């Protein structure tokens, strides 16, 4: 079976800016993938190219084995973009009915409204709704055609914490039906929590690709810190430790195996105090990855 998405050697230049600088990426059917990176990393450009809204300067893009434009025309792709919106004076339900009418095999209206949690505001005018609700209309519009691939550019950007959670719950219901989802985000927790796979982008390149925990491991796993009476010599040689940093009176040990490092620290008989071990979290992982890339 063909991949849902395939990019090979894709690059896109806007004037002097190389927005996307040679990407190779394949996404299998049914995967939920986060495209993670800071602003200007090339996420939106990548999504626009996958929708046929921008042409790649170099390389090949396929969506379900055809060109992005053909895939959109065939109704296989639904998308939620930041710059998309709705003209005034239309009701939510009218927008959804219109979206459904544009596709051959739409989802039932009630299901679209329920999934996007819009049932209660179905009769309201779109221009009278909050940012979070508008964002859910975008989601409903993207869902209505029953697409096999959903592309979401920063989907939760205008939402408060509560709407964010209900949005992702709705998304889970959708992906449970075997659809493929690619979402761009710079919310690190979101990528970690909701994606099977995280693709990290920086400066137009893919700099890491793996599960959330793999990304964390790649960036050094955990950090152990403590105060020490005496010299820090030899700490770098402890098992599980990858780097040593001194910050004021605290010593920070970056660990790829913090369990082994703790054992070794205890057995070394050093007089340490105030021991703390913190998970790197995707945020730290992400910073490490992007800054490492910047030094090249």
């Amino acid at each position, binding site marked *: 079976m063909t991949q849902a998405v395939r990019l090979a050697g894709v690059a896109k230049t806007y004037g002097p800016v190389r927005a996307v600088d040679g990407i190779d990426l394949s996404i299998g059917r049914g995967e939920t993938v986060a495209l993670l990176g800071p602003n200007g990393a090339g996420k939106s450009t990548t999504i626009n190219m996958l929708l046929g809204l921008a042409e790649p300067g170099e390389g090949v893009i396929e969506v379900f084995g055809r060109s992005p434009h053909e895939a959109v025309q065939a109704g296989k792709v639904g998308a939620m*973009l930041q*710059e*998309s919106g*709705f*003209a005034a004076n239309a009701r939510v339900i009218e927008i959804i009915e219109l979206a459904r009418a544009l596709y051959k095999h739409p989802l039932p209206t009630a299901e679209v409204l329920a999934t996007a949690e819009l049932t209660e505001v179905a009769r309201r005018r779109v221009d009278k709704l909050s940012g979070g609700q508008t964002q859910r209309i975008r989601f409903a519009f993207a869902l209505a055609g029953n697409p096999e691939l959903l592309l979401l550019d920063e989907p939760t950007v205008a939402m408060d914490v509560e709407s964010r959670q209900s949005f992702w719950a709705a998304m889970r219901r959708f992906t449970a039906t075997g659809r493929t989802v690619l979402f761009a985000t710079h919310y690190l927790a979101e990528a970690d929590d909701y994606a099977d796979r995280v693709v990290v982008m920086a400066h137009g390149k893919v700099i890491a690709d793996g599960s959330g925990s793999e990304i964390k491991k790649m960036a050094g796993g955990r950090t152990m810190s403590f105060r020490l009476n005496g010299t820090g010599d030899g700490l770098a040689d402890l098992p599980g430790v990858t780097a040593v940093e001194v910050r004021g009176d605290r010593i920070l040990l970056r660990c790829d195996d913090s369990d082994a490092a703790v054992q070794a620290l205890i057995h070394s008989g050093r007089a340490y105090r105030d021991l703390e071990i913190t998970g790197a979290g995707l945020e730290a992982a992400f910073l490490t990855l992007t800054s490492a890339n910047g030094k090249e």
Partner: protein
Amino acid sequence: MMTYLKYEVLRVLRNGAFTGYTVGFPVGFYLLFTVVFDQSPVGGSAFDAYYMVSMALYGAIGTALTGVGAPIAMERSKGWTRQLALTPLRPGRYLLIKIAAASVLSLPAILAILLCGKLIHRVDLDLGTWLALVPALWVGALPFVGLGIAIGYTFRDESAQGVALAAYFLMSVAGGLWMPTVAFPAWLAKVSEVLPTYRAGELSWRLIAGESPFSGGALILAAWTVAFLGLAAWRFRRAS
């Protein structure tokens, strides 16, 4: 197609300014110049009938330019055209829907003015002529749908509405819709003859005078129609 057309029509009808410009103004003008002032016959037709079709066309052109065409600028800035670009809707379909919406939405103005003529001034036309007036007015408004779409795809928000209004008033006055060209100085009457507003009006003026709507002037209207629809298609492609 029908779902989208219905959506477009409902959405525009909810806009109060639209009803004002396209129904209120022409009806007001018609009553002002036929009830308040007394006028002599023009080109073999009673002024009441002549001005009735002038104002009906004025309303239909207003719909095309300010109700359907210029608001496209707003659709663009709000991201609606972007949203549609993510769907299988083909661009040709989109333009067809805009044209169809302009025709449907011009009906309130057309019918209101024709009713005023019939009820207030007892304008006497045979049934065939009454029925032929609606398509004649639609055909006359068609180039302005093209011009409106071109404006909507060229200018931004308020400036699009401003440009559309300027084109609307200038061409309506110079084309003899506000007052008949017989009242114009010779040079302005000459200008009128090449304008799409005058040639669009000619279709209906000929109809109520009992003539075939099509004369040599229809060719000039056809040329404007092709030119403005072409302009619309070009601006549309540039923007998408």
